[in-house]
């Protein structure tokens, strides 16, 4: 039967012994995308908060772009998870009868909290005044859309703007722990599986948070340069340099934490260590050492470190930033890959491995994963059209 073909192939390529039910690798590429996309959301949001809460002025030009990026990825963040379900239409059960001891059950609520209460509200208060202005300038349907978006409140008095500003600030402050919660929580989904020694570590949520920041910052850097290029505008070099600086710092923290985790694992060398050693040196060699550490960490770290001391010309720096942001995005993708796929490649009997091949032609998971990565860019394009940051009234107070 065709459905089982890949399984028979995996069966023929087993290394050692594996529980028979483990041959089928249940969490495929879509589950790799799930923490990847949520990570991008959390990271982009935290970059926005750096500007607002920590008052880093140089990041002002990217504030709205980061928020809109976060929103557009947030809107599809659940899709990889839902489309991966064996029974996607039963997804609502997670909200209707959540099983409170399950980490995954809480996802719906963490998601709703973050989307509805944090992201949408922050953007809403940030844009409310401008939307009122735009609703007065535009005509027809667009006017109606803006009106609806403002909830038919056409207040533009300085007091109302002050309220917007105050509440927006408050939400950002609440938003930082929420962003940590959102992604730390995704890490917890993996970190709390005691059956799987590759996942089960208290560091997992923390590592997820910092890798999320790294990837989100790189994404905003990439999008900011892309948007500037498309608008034929010069990107603000100050902003880019500052983003790069923060990327560098957080990358160091991220790498330290990950190394700490691995060193701890190696030094403790518990019962699972032998199999994990073979796993990392064998099946994960390419994705772990070359992609995750080489491309994702070492190249960006050395380049950005170099830039802290010596600043080449703007053009060169721009190219460097472009390449670095892509490297980091690829590296973090492989980090998620190594966690999700790597954790399923070895047997919980510790006696062998199964294999996983990305099925480029027949695999629905691949196409859906690509889809859920591309859709956010379209949403972002739409949002940028609807709520253009560059047409905002910039006398706003923060």
């Amino acid at each position, binding site marked *: 039967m065709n459905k089982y073909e890949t399984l028979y192939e995996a069966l023929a390529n087993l290394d050692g012994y594996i529980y028979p039910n483990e041959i089928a690798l249940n969490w495929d590429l879509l589950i790799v995308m799930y923490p990847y996309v949520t990570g991008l959301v959390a990271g982009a949001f935290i970059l926005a908060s750096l500007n607002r809460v920590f008052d880093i002025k140089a990041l002002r030009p990217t504030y709205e772009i980061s928020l809109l990026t976060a929103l557009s990825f947030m809107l599809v963040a659940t899709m990889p998870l839902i489309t991966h379900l*064996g029974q996607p239409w039963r997804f609502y059960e997670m909200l209707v009868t959540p099983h409170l001891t399950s980490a995954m*059950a809480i996802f719906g609520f963490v998601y709703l909290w973050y989307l509805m209460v944090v992201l949408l509200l922050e953007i809403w208060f940030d844009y409310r005044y401008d939307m009122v202005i735009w609703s007065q300038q535009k005509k027809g349907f667009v006017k109606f859309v803006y009106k609806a978006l403002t909830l038919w409140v056409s207040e533009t008095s300085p007091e109302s703007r002050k309220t917007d500003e105050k509440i927006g600030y408050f939400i950002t402050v609440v938003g930082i722990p929420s962003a940590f919660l959102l992604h730390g929580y995704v890490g917890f989904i993996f970190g709390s599986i005691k059956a799987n020694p590759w996942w089960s570590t208290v560091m997992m949520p923390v590592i997820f948070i910092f890798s999320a920041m790294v990837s989100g910052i790189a994404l905003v850097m990439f999008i900011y340069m892309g948007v500037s290029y498309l608008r034929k505008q010069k990107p603000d070099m100050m902003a880019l340099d500052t983003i790069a600086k923060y990327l560098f710092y957080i990358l160091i923290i991220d790498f330290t934490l990950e190394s700490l985790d691995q060193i701890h694992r190696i030094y403790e060398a518990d019962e699972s260590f032998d199999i994990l050693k073979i796993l990392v040196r064998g099946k994960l060699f390419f994705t772990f050492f070359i992609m995750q550490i080489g491309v994702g960490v070492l190249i960006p770290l050395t380049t950005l470190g170099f830039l802290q001391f010596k600043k080449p010309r703007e053009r060169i720096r721009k190219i460097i930033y472009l390449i670095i942001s892509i490297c980091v995005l690829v590296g973090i993708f492989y980090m998620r890959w190594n966690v999700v796929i790597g954790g399923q490649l070895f047997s919980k009997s510790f006696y062998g491995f199964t294999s996983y091949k990305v099925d480029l032609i027949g695999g629905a998971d691949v196409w859906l994963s690509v889809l859920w990565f591309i859709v956010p860019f379209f949403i972002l394009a739409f949002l940028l059209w609807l709520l253009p940051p560059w047409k905002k009234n910039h006398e706003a107070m923060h």
Partner: protein
Amino acid sequence: MAIKKENSSRRDFIKNSSMFAGGIVLVSLLNPLKMVYATKKPKGKGKWYGIGIDIEKCIGCASCARACKVENDVPNEPFFFRNWVEQYTITNDDEIKVSSPNGGIDGFKQPVPDDEIYKTFFVPKMCNHCAKSPCTQVCPVGASFESPEGIALVDKSYCIGCGYCVQSCPYGCRYIDMENGVVDKCTLCYHRLQKGLDPACMMACPTGARIYGDLNDKESAVSVFIKENNCAVLKPQLNTESKLFYNDLSQEVH
């Protein structure tokens, strides 16, 4: 049944739903341990099933695995088992070889000649029906649950097929049934137990290597088995409170 029903009035749905948002956090703060495990052993004298497997008596015929597949309509492909048999062979060079061709149904061959074998034995595997089952703990919708009798079951008409329980089972006892996209696992033949029949694997064993019974009843076959033999459970370090007890379990078995 001796189990008390929990309050199930539909009218207090508002009360239930307020548990929704902040509830978990609050409850787990107030009483952290109570909420962590999905199951609680019911008080009172209801049944609480446990299983015993006598490794010394297993001849590796895999009649249990066959009977289980037939009884429970498990797909015939060699990737789906509620119940399978492993053969361990430890050579004189301390090399450990494990095999389970089609869960044992295809028959076992010794991989090394007899005079190089240090030790060899069969280990039948099935769901451990843990008292603190990690699988029912992680089910996001309550489709995986432990019955009042201590049997981990799946509500297939409610399962969303996320596969989280498959990941969290340390013993590899769950699989996704690709036909319906939902999870399937050993039910200790719950339907047979309720009809007064033995579970298919217990019935099929020709040598009586498998025993099951009520752990609350200290005279039951399994209680006596545990008392008289030096039993161990798999992966005790994970504290799943497994209720599958092996006699004569070697430490090589994971």
